[in-house]
């Protein structure tokens, strides 16, 4: 290189610009959720590190399906929920272990980092570090559906025909808790889990006439709640808080049985090519100021130590209104889903959808 550089002034100029950039600039193909990689954060990252970022928005199931289709290729960094890493990793081997020495652990809230590491460990390797956390529970129009306190209240006659929830696993889990069962305790026992799910299935079929429609995407639910066609629903906390900004009657309520807590993580796909950029992105977005920018876009809080100070006051107020201290203690955090449980849940969901 030195020899080449001395050839002409032009090359010298070129060489200096090259050496001004970091060792190598990579393209980071990020597989994430809507709002987790806002444009201003991406621009700041690209300016500071020289890496390029390509964002693909997805959800848990699609992330796993996409990575499974390519054996863990096509993306350099994915953000599945912490309970959905160990199972698919054992079954399909789509991730590679995280090198903790390349991560600035001082940026993370220690308890959350340890819990996520524990839940995403397969063998002796860690496959995930936490990024954003939140809960799902009830989003209600409190002026019309004040009587709804728990998931099973969605089946009451007071809100008949004005209810919406997703036909996905959080609904099954939520209803099971509201019915006094403990699905998480039965995760390891397929027979017991099947028994719990069959009770939930009966309840959901009984509840079906109450439901206006099963929502699929967040925007669809927003439309239904905004227009007043739906007054009580099961959804993410951020959805409720966003609507609360437009209509003070609508907000997120932590159900009596407990909100369901999730943590979305960073995981490295097995055939990812830009590990350096991936680690750089993780360490970049976990800085408190950057984490606060993501919180502003996604509406959820991050696992970044000290980012709360930078968060918007309105959001903090909404969070406190939805979560009195006892509701925070009552949050049910998803434990890792063992491989194979999806098949049991799938049968239940299909039968509920088909019931008249």
């Amino acid at each position, binding site marked *: 290189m030195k020899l080449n550089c001395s050839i002409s002034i032009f090359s010298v100029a070129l060489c200096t610009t090259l050496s001004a950039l970091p060792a190598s600039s990579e393209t980071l193909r990020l597989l994430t959720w809507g709002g987790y990689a806002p444009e201003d954060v991406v621009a700041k990252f690209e300016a500071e590190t020289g890496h390029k970022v390509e964002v693909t928005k997805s959800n848990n*199931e699609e992330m796993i399906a996409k990575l499974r289709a390519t054996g863990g290729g096509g993306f350099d960094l994915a953000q599945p929920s912490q309970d959905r890493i160990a199972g698919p990793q*054992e*079954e399909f*081997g789509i991730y590679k272990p995280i090198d903790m020495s390349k991560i600035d652990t001082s940026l993370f809230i220690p308890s959350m980092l340890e819990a996520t590491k524990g839940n995403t460990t397969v063998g002796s390797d860690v496959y995930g570090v936490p990024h954003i956390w939140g809960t799902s529970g009830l989003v209600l129009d409190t002026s019309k559906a004040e009587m709804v306190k728990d998931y099973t209240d969605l089946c009451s006659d007071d809100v008949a025909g004005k209810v919406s929830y997703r036909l996905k696993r959080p609904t099954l889990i939520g209803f099971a808790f509201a019915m006094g069962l403990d699905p998480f305790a039965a995760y390891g026992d397929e027979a017991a889990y099947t028994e719990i799910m069959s009770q939930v299935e009966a309840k959901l079929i009984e509840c079906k006439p109450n439901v206006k429609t099963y929502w699929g995407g967040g925007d669809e639910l927003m439309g239904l709640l905004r227009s007043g066609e739906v007054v009580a629903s099961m959804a993410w906390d951020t959805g409720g808080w966003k609507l609360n900004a437009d209509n003070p009657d609508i907000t997120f309520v932590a159900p009596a049985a407990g909100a369901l807590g999730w943590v979305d993580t960073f995981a490295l796909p097995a055939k990812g090519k830009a590990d350096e950029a991936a680690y750089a992105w993780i360490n970049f977005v976990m800085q408190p100021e950057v984490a606060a920018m993501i919180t502003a876009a996604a509406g959820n809080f991050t696992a970044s130590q000290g980012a709360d100070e930078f968060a918007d006051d309105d959001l903090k107020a909404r969070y406190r209104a939805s979560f009195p201290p006892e509701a925070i203690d009552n949050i049910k955090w998803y434990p890792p889903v063992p491989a194979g449980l999806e098949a049991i849940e*799938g049968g239940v969901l*299909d039968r509920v*959808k*088909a019931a008249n």
Partner: protein
Amino acid sequence: MRAEAKLGLILLLTPLLLWLSLLILIPHVDMFLVSLRERIGVGEYRISFANYLTFINEPLYLRTFIRTAVMSTLATMITLLIAFPVSYYIAKIARGRVQSALFLLCLVPFWVSELVRTFGWMILLRETGLISNLLQWAGLVDGPVEMLYNDAAIMVGLVYTSMLFMVVPLVTTLESLPDEVIEAGYDLGGGGGAVMREIVIPHAAPGIVSGCIVVFMLSLGNYLTPIMLGGKDSLWFTELIYSQFIVRFNWELGAAFGFLLLGLSSAIVWGMLKLTGQSLEKTMG
């Protein structure tokens, strides 16, 4: 010379063969192999027909398939009933610029994506939507009416999305029918009904059949319309395939469903052709 001609033929055929084998044949073979796998443990599989047996033993899947097939057939018939008079008017009655303008009107909705068209119907049909508000304003109903999330809404969506694919083959075949033949029918004392039955419909039969096949296949394989307009009761076979692949990580069962859909829909089309005495060559040729 002969060898050169052969080489030319091979070179000309190569793109087509590559296309067919790489994009159609190989994925299907792979899919078929996946459908024969049965999961017996974490990352362990063995070859069996378990996935096909699941389809037969679980009444839900069979019911969903029958429901999808019946609804698609119904949608095809409704599309034909609406499209035939329209096509007849465009091909035989309208002239000059009116003819082109009418044909263009059938085409225009297809310039936007299917998703947007379906959203359009959702805006019209929903409880706080246009039709509901119009009915209330006119005093015909007291409260808001929900017209979305039922089978009728799915049917409307399916017929609307596939209308063009019926109109185009019908217009083409009807245009090839000389007006003199119709006039001769009337001159020989036939009434409107007899002329339609004896002359127009037999002539248009290939167009009707090819239109029906396309519309039936499009409806059967439609994913968006049933999901968005059908809501909680949509239950469409393609939805089952999607959820097996994406939500359940059960590629094996999804692949089996995919093959069953392919086989059963081909069987239905074949049965229809036999029933109407048409052959595929006549229809497509």
